[in-house]
């Protein structure tokens, strides 16, 4: 029964994702051949994003893959660990049930209004995925007490969470009972909201902070905070879900799951080996050639996987041994791969760039063009560090041989053509960003499954399934984060911030410096997607007031967050690298320090030389 349910869940989400790929492409074909498109295809694709995302989130909860802060893993085993796990589950369940109720309220109000999304589909039915997913998550978080969260990309192996499977079942049932107190608390807050209105919020915030530290899933931390704030003001938590819905169905957002799928299909096939071979044939001869190859290859992958760490997990296994074999020092190799996992975030069509454009309401194409030179700069700086290392440690080099170069390039021709495909599709006026992303996903599917025949049906199903989980893990976080943003907007925080800044900050240069420091802290404390959704609306008016080009502001923003991935202890890359290469977190931190310094310099260069971002834009007439 449980397995059947799981199968149905996976199949529905994967099928929805497949339809997302095919529908925009069918629309192009129909438009060109019959002169008219498919009714409501665009709103349907937008709503499929919502469905894929929230079914994916429910699946992530089922499999213990909801993203949480890494700090939870430092709590020693034993009674403290057990208490921490119960707190994490209870808090997660409380937040999820409140959000489920908000989603239900929204859907029922929509039902009464009788709106539809087109082609006769009622809006409320599409919205029902929200209350259903959040309710399922609430129950699963209680059920899985002790193993509710993991890495976003714990795809390849089992997560440490399953360590406790040996525990006696009586103990586990007690833990579940204790965790379900969170569910009851949630129901109580919904029934008697005056409890929250009457009291100071500080004790509640203390609980939120504690819950975050012990490893409560991030969606619950952000969504729980938003719910507390709204309910304290006597406003329904449905406000959060209205924002979640609105973000999830925004017209350009489908590009994110579709590009993610393309990345996953590449990672599942043997694309990484083919690309490693070709990059090695071309760059292997320079001193530090293999290191350069690693930086370039990681950038290439991260562009499609959004720096969520898929790069480290997918490529680490190939690249780490290759570096060691060529005589690079272990510490250097570890640092390089940890940093490379976020290289490429500035290059098109990277997912954070898309999200930034959606949130800041600037054309996607502009931020894609703006990111090209800064992205190349960061990759080049890391490569240069690799060249230095290669020279110092006299690591092995691969002589350039033309026949091998040609043969490897021919073997990898389909993969190498992908970035060109994206750019041509988007900039020729042939396709919108969403259509281009669908085209890329279909292309990756055809190349990996039919041309190279690397993917059997079973691999395809796994790739779709894992992709859905990652999309869900991300979308649920940014979906509730946008609710928190809405609270801040309602409290007029952006206006107050602007007022403060215009009295205390006198020059553009000073503004940029403060911005760098602020974003560094944000990148350290927050998950990248949540950071974009929460912080961008606060700083966009500031940037405008100080005359910063909005595309430049976006590039500064993401470059800073790229650094945040590497910050000691909470940086996602650190945690993933530690897991992937089986090295202690502190060792990985130390290994990544030189990389942090290099990227830090790169970020400063990008910030203070706006031309890097705006030059190409001006040249292409997008200025």
């Amino acid at each position, binding site marked *: 029964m449980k397995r059947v349910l799981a199968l149905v869940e996976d199949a529905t989400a994967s099928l929805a994702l497949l339809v997302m790929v095919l529908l925009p492409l069918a629309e192009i074909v129909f438009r060109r051949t019959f*002169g*008219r*498109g498919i*009714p*409501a295809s*665009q*709103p349907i694709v937008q709503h499929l994003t919502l469905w894929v995302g929230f079914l994916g989130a429910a699946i992530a909860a089922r499999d213990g893959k909801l993203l949480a802060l890494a700090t939870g893993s430092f709590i020693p085993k034993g009674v403290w660990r057990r208490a921490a796990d119960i707190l994490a589950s209870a808090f997660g369940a409380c937040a999820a049930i409140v959000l489920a109720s908000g989603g239900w*309220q*929204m859907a029922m*109000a*929509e039902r*009464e*209004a009788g*709106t539809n*999304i*087109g*082609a006769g589909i009622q809006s409320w039915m599409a919205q029902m995925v929200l209350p259903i997913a959040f309710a399922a998550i609430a129950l699963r978080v209680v059920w899985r007490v002790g193993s509710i969260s993991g890495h976003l990309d714990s795809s390849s192996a089992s997560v440490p969470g399953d360590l406790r499977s040996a525990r006696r079942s009586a103990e586990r049932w007690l833990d579940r009972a204790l965790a379900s107190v969170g569910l009851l608390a949630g129901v109580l807050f919904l029934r008697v909201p005056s409890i929250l*209105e009457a009291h100071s919020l500080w004790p509640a915030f203390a609980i939120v902070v504690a819950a975050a530290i012990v490893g409560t899933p991030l969606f619950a931390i952000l969504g729980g905070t938003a719910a507390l704030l*709204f309910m304290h*003001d*006597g*406003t*329904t938590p*449905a*406000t959060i879900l*209205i*924002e979640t*819905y*609105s973000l999830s169905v*925004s*017209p*350009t957002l489908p590009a994110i799951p579709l590009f993610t799928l393309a990345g996953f299909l590449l990672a599942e096939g043997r694309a990484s080996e083919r690309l490693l071979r070709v990059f090695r044939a071309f760059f292997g001869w320079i001193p530090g050639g293999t290191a350069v190859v690693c930086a370039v290859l990681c950038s290439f992958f991260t562009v499609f996987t959004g720096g969520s760490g898929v790069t480290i997990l997918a490529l680490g296994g190939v690249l780490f041994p290759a570096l060691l074999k060529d005589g690079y020092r272990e510490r250097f190799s570890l640092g390089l791969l940890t940093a490379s996992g976020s290289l490429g975030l500035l290059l098109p069509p990277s997912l954070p760039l898309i999200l930034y*454009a959606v949130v800041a*309401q*600037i*054309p*996607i*194409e*502009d931020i894609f063009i703006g990111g090209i030179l800064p992205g190349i700069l960061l990759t080049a700086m890391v490569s240069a560090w690799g060249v230095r290392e290669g020279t110092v440690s006299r690591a092995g080099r691969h002589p350039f041989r033309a026949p091998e170069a040609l043969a490897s390039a021919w073997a990898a021709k389909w993969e190498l053509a992908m970035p060109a495909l994206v750019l041509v599709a*988007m*900039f*020729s*006026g042939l396709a*919108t960003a969403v259509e281009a992303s669908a085209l890329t996903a279909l292309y990756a599917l055809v190349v990996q499954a039919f041309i190279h025949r690397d993917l059997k049906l079973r691999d395809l199903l796994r790739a779709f399934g894992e992709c859905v989980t990652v999309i869900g893990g991300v979308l649920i976080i940014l979906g509730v984060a946008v609710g928190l943003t*809405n609270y801040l*907007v*309602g409290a*007029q925080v*952006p206006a107050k911030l602007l007022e403060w800044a215009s009295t205390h900050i006198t020059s553009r240069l000073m503004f940029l410096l403060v911005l760098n420091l602020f974003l560094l802290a944000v990148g350290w404390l927050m998950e990248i997607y949540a950071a974009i959704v929460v912080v961008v*609306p606060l700083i966009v008016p500031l940037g405008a007031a100080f005359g910063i080009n909005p595309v430049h502001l976006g590039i500064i923003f993401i470059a800073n967050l790229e650094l945040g991935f590497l910050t000691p202890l909470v940086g996602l890359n650190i945690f993933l690298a530690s897991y992937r290469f089986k090295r202690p977190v502190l060792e990985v931190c130390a290994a990544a320090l030189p990389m942090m310094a290099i990227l830090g310099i790169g970020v400063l260069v990008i910030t203070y030389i706006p031309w890097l971002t705006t030059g190409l834009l001006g040249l292409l*007439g*997008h200025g």
Partner: protein
Amino acid sequence: QAPPSAIKLATVVPQGSIWDKNLKQMGDEWKDATGGRITVTVYSGGSQGDESTALRKMRLDALQAAAFTVVGLGQIDWAFNVFDIPFFFDSYDELNYVTDELTPVLRKRIEPKGFMLLNWGHGGWTQIFTKKPVQTVDDLRHIKLWTSAGNDKQVQWFKANGFQPRPMAMTDILTGLTTGMLEGLPTTPLAASLFQWDKQTPYMLELGLAPVVGAGVITTKAWNAIPAADKPKLLAAANGVEQRLRVEVPKLDANAVEQMTKRGLTVTKATGPEWRTQLDDLAKTMRGESVPPDIFDLALKARTEYRKQHPAAPPPK
């Protein structure tokens, strides 16, 4: 519980625009008129989300008021789509006459749905901005025309009548025009000038596609919580906004055309009688399709009355 007198008003009009200033002025007047018992916070620039989002929040009392365009109003009641019928109105005077006739009926329709109409707000008059000059209706059918994303009914209507609508987010307009995904868009001169779309579309067909009609609405829940004695003062302030916009907005539109002409815009006029005949036929296809039949007939009746009283109506706007 938030005091019933703290009113949050959402709107997508740009911060600092004439509409934003007028709404804030109305808020101040409401506060003064009630000795501070009612406060109004205006969230402009779409900071509370697009109109559908703001409307959802109003239904759950997370917002109490809004200044909507026909996009949001049409979602409260499809009767408001009457203002969006292409080429239905010839002039502001005609529009105002028909609006006055429709107002009591529209008020009555939305009240049971939980909304109260505060005032009307002019947003300008939509013209067609294109890359290539457009002369005939058929020329227009060959243009990839922007329409706002999220209104599938409108898209289907355009398609069914042989046009090439390209639904896109407003933020993608400039890119769409640059890459050639779009070749034209209906918008007001003021908006075209503000967002500098005219750089990409050097031709403006002065045809007057439709007026941009907006309205202030408040939830009946919030309105009923206001003491009866205060209401006339509040309505007077709301009416002040309506009167000021009636005068100011047409002037701003005209100014914008002047500005854009100076930087290279060519204004063309529709030629030939087929525009009027074809467009009247087009308008009729919306009856019952996107506008309730009774409202359509009422508007038509009012328009006929107006045209009878003013036989020398000004040329199409």
